[in-house]
């Protein structure tokens, strides 16, 4: 009998079983930059969640006597001669803005806006993108063709301009009335969220297109694979094939793409807030803070610096994490 006997002593009996997810995780943890970025993002999330507990001030609290106040140690980043005009106060560890609001507090609360946008934007675009892309790729043929032409059409559409126009319109209505009916309720909800609702919708709408393309491409390549055919041969229905066989395999690249897209979401929010179409004042967003700070850039560069540093570090962290995830999910690395 030539068939090998039970492979009891095979080397793999000695190892522990590891799924591809675990292996990817191992690879990610070996990437220092990605780990540091991950820790930074987790810290930021904690700061955002516990913002109220972390600072004694609120983001809207004004101390008009202490407008533009800076602590003494900050002189070294101020322009020459600042000691002659500056309003020194040690009440605010990282200085105050032109209304005497604590900048550190506002930056901390600004993290809430940016991170909410990051996660809500990803969630919205990922959900719409996966559903749309998977249906398109799985159906194939004419349906796929039609669905992808729609994506191409929308892709060529200048969404940012549409968002700017819509936001201008909504802001105008919102400032005029408390709102009635469906639209009114919507506007009220948006106001209660500090203007965030429309931002979620806008950012989700812009970004699902890319996710749909990736999801569709992945489905197209996986649905030809023999294990999917094997499932068909066993009598599996479409739902089972989509959720058990396709989704777990296409998720990796989507997560990577989504992580890489997050800096874009944060920037879009900052940009819209910067031009006054994002969150409503006095909700602090890094974009609004930079916009306010820019007006006093020559005398008080510190007011721009703080939110700008927060914005840069956060987007950098997401970029590094995305890079790390991409390497970790790289199928060519699978056996390392």
């Amino acid at each position, binding site marked *: *009998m*030539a*068939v*090998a*006997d*039970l*492979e*009891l002593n*095979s080397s*793999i*009996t000695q*190892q522990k*079983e*590891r*799924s*591809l*997810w675990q292996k990817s995780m191992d690879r990610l943890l070996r990437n220092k930059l990605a780990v540091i970025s991950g820790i930074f993002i987790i810290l930021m999330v904690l700061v955002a969640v516990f913002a109220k507990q972390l600072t004694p001030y609120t983001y809207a609290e004004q101390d008009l006597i202490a407008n533009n106040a800076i602590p003494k140690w900050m002189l070294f980043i101020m322009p020459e001669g600042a000691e002659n005009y500056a309003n020194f106060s040690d009440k605010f560890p990282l200085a105050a803005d032109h209304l005497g609001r604590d900048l550190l507090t506002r930056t901390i609360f600004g993290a809430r806006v940016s991170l909410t946008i990051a996660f809500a934007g990803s969630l919205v675009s990922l959900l719409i993108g996966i559903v749309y892309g998977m249906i398109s790729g799985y159906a194939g*043929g*004419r349906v796929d*063709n039609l669905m992808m*032409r729609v994506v191409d059409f929308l892709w060529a559409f200048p969404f940012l301009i549409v968002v700017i126009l819509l936001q201008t319109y909504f802001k105008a209505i919102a400032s005029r009335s408390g709102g009635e009916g469906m639209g009114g309720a919507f506007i009220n909800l948006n106001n209660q969220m500090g203007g965030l609702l429309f931002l979620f919708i806008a950012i989700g709408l812009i970004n699902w297109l890319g996710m749909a393309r990736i999801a569709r491409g992945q489905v197209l390549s996986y649905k030809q*694979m*023999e*294990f999917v*055919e*094997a*499932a*068909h*041969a*066993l*009598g*599996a229905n479409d739902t*089972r094939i989509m959720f*058990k*066989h396709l989704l*777990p*395999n296409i998720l990796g690249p989507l997560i990577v793409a989504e992580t890489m897209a997050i800096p874009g979401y944060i920037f879009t929010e900052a940009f819209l807030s910067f031009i006054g179409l994002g969150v409503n004042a006095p909700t602090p967003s890094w974009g609004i803070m930079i916009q306010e700070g820019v007006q006093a850039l020559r005398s008080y560069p510190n007011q721009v610096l703080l939110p700008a540093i927060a914005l840069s570090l956060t987007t950098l962290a997401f970029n590094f994490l995305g890079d790390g995830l991409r390497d970790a999910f790289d199928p060519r690395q*699978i*056996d390392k």
Partner: protein
Amino acid sequence: MAENNSLVRVEKLVKHFPITQGVIIQRQVGAVKAVDGISFDIKHGETLGLVGESGCGKSTTGRTILQLHEPTAGKVYYDGEDLTTMGESDLRRLRREMQIIFQDPYASLNPRMTIGDIIGEPLDIHKIGTAKERLERVQELLNLVRLNPFFIKRYPHEFSGGQRQRIGVARALALNPNFIVCDEPISALDVSVQAQVVNLLEELQEKFDLTYLFIAHDLSMVRHISDRIAVMYLGKLVELADKDELFYNKMHPYAIALLSAVPIPDPVKERQRKRIILEGDVPSPAKPPSGCRFHTRCPIAQDICKVEDPPFEEKTPGHWVACHFTKKAQEEML
């Protein structure tokens, strides 16, 4: 050719893949004629070997028989029932009896599922047994293909090619099928492992009275495992006979050329073996040659071959050939 003891009967089976063009409105501009009207039957308990060059439509034949591709035309009967006109639920019931083993042991197992889940999936799909019974069945199947049941929680990437192929065999066996399409199950494996898998397949055939359609490149392996052999060229069958008949009394020029590449064990005969190297490339199945599809490469082609497609005829009992000049082929090429 419809005999009573046939388990699978294929009649004038056609599978064309449409070639489309156009960005918004897609028009069909042609078709890849992967399988173009083939008829044969597979007898209960036998192994029918299917050979031919790459791209001639072997895999498509196997998959269309199992209705993994929808046939363009023709019939497939399994145990007397027509699969091509059958509804979803009837087909699902019959899927328990027909299975497939794939060529690529890497692509044929879902990398995100454990071995236990992969082998247990057929039981899950057809809702067979309780969780505990399924687990026992999976362990039994792993033993059957000589893998340690201890591996049940492992993932495919932790196994070698041969082991993975045996996992594929276990999955195919889970529902106790009668008929299995083996699509080049050993081509991707190391030579040392090939024999193991072939022996396992033979052993399982004996044990469970299985019927195989065995697709392969390697003619000596096909000769070893098959009872009858069918030779395919560009979407058509050109010759079909018992394996010994085919090896000793081959009639079709393409089959003669193909088999001339197989070494003969007898050293005297081996020295006399005439190797025939075919000239030219296989034509595209999207534009097959007129008349006999082999005429562009056939060493004995005549004018009539370019216009008239030779019928697939039973020249001697059980020996089917599609060629106008079988006598000439045997005289000039052997």
